[in-house]
């Protein structure tokens, strides 16, 4: 799936754990690793980084370390593009306060601007743990079928216990409101039931073409605001990884002033998250 994995390392309390997770992913995907650190004093930092790598289980034969000076998010992204990284891994604090929400923390900047897939880990551990309960965003739009396909593939690699595919019905309220003006009580119940059944069937037929052997797949259909409901569901099933598709366009300040889907999730991450650039 991922041939080259970039890892953003800051010297934070959890940097050791991030590296241990990175080592696990490297092994999982049999991938090359690029460690990216943005700081000031190159010599001392390189030494510290080397020590960290030594302590971790990273395969150093397939490792490259890049040190940069400047604005962290911008530098990390430019390295990713130059090295043709297809998955970027970084750590993040779980919750953003309101000031940070508008100015943006580094991890969230990476999500908003990256051209590759991004995985944000909110509680990496030593030793690393594979993901056991995975929620995949199955709401229609963009390349959502690819997201489901990639998500299932990833879940199989991880040997996950549960995979939930969560789908939000678009414009459910408007559909029911209009049904309310045309139909009597019984017909409306029928319409409501039919909408739910149709959405579930769509996902089922999609899954037919995907190999899900050995996975327990749960399909959940709901109404409401997609991003918000997805986050709530992820919390409810205590998932440890949420897989969503990456937005069609790069996010700008407008998307934050009028937050929607992805912004609603990354403002308050419910779990680790993988934004898949299908």
């Amino acid at each position, binding site marked *: 799936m991922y041939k080259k994995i970039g890892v953003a390392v800051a010297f934070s309390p959890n940097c050791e754990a991030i590296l241990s997770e990175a080592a696990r992913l490297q092994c999982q995907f049999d991938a090359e690793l690029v460690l990216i650190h943005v700081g000031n004093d190159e010599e001392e930092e390189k030494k510290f980084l080397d020590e960290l790598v030594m302590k971790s289980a990273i395969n150093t034969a397939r490792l490259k370390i890049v040190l940069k000076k400047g604005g962290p998010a911008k530098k990390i992204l430019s390295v990713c593009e130059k090295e043709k990284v297809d998955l970027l891994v970084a750590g993040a604090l779980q919750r953003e306060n309101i000031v940070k929400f508008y100015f943006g923390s580094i991890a969230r900047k990476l999500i908003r601007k990256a051209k590759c897939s991004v995985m944000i880990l909110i509680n990496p551990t030593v030793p690393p743990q594979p993901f056991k309960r995975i929620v995949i965003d199955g709401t229609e739009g963009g390349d959502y079928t690819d997201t489901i396909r990639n998500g299932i593939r990833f879940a199989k690699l991880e040997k996950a216990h549960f995979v939930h595919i969560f789908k939000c019905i*678009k*414009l459910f309220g*408007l559909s029911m*409101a*209009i049904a309310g*003006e045309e139909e009597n009580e019984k017909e409306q119940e029928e319409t409501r039931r039919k909408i739910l059944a149709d959405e579930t069937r769509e996902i089922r037929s999609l899954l037919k073409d995907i190999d899900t052997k050995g996975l327990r797949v749960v399909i959940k259909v709901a109404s409401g*605001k997609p991003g918000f*409901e997805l986050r709530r569901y992820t919390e409810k099933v205590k998932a440890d990884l949420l897989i969503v598709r990456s937005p069609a366009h790069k996010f700008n300040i407008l998307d934050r002033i009028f937050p929607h889907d992805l912004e609603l999730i990354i403002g308050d991450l419910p779990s680790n998250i993988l934004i898949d650039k299908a």
Partner: protein
Amino acid sequence: MQLLSHNEIITLFMQLGVMILAARLTGELFRKFQLPLVIGEILAGVLLGPTVLGTIDPDMFRALFPHDGHTSVILEGIIGISVALLLFVAGMEVELDLVWQQGRKALYTSLFALFIPLLTGFIISYFAPGLFDLDASTDRLVFALFIGTTLSITALPVIARVLMDLNIFKTDTGMVIIASAMIIDILGWIIFSVILNMMGERSEGLSIGYTIFLTLLFTFIMLTIGKSLINKLLPWINRNFTWPGGVLSVTMALSFFAAAFTEYIGIHAIFGTFIIGVAIGDSEHMSERAKEIVHQFINNIFGPLFFISIGLYVNFLTNFNLTIIIILILLAITSKFAGAFTGARLGGLKKHDALAVGFGMNTHGTLEVILGTIALNSGLITEEIFVAIVIMVIVSIIISAPLMKYSLKIAARLKEDEKS
């Protein structure tokens, strides 16, 4: 304190009962013929108003709907509340998420589908006011802007219903149409509230620039700060108050406050309820079920009261001017199609999809009637033009489904051609 007399109380309750029941009966009759309830409701007003009842039995008409006295003032107040609440529901139907998702396509489609009819309507009615039998005392600029705005609005509920009936509601084309209609709703009401202010007495009214500034500022603040405050408030209400009682009373109260506030700063009250409707509807804590309750309550009690009132004060037969009606209908259809088609093409849609979008955006609905009622009450338009607008709306609602079906057929053929 002034009190209603015994007879006035009887009249008022009779009015309300008759109006709601008549609207329901004719509405259901129309439903049997697969037509929207709202057309039946408007027609019920025509039956109860001067057009039919007033002509057949003038005494009974005057006894039921007296033109002066306390009851008429109270009824007008109730109808005013109904309009404001209808706008609240219209606002709640807007889904900003969807608008962002559709992005460029929806933006181009809506801008062109809004401004081309607006310009066409404006230019024609400004330079050829004779077409509308405009009398010399009317403010030509405001009138032309009004006609332009009337043509520019697309009715979201009408188009949603058509798309659903044709089973293309959730296709990409359907989503572009819905998102564009939502953008037009917001922009159309911003423009309209500015025009309303220009209609008002100039000495009292604010300057145009100031009104535009206030309208935009109010919209922006409500959709950012206002929305996030609502987002904080609603979960608290859901936790601490009974459900759905708590959320219903609080949202109603908020919408009345917004109406009072916009009226106070000099924009029309209904703009306040519309924008707060958008803000509340967009909150993730306003559950679909709560929305449904508000929707049912307003659309089945207050909606009919307003739609029936349309026919109560105007004689549709004596004010029937075929020329104006035909001009309006032609202008509405051609300019809307041209605008939406061009916009969809520029937004990156294929020709066959753009065609479907062009026809799809071609629906007018209740908002135009609300606009017309306010313009009629403020003396901007004649009863003839008002009647023409109502008929244009009814015609557009009736033809929208067949027209869309036809356009899908052409679109399918075009798609084949594009392939081969």
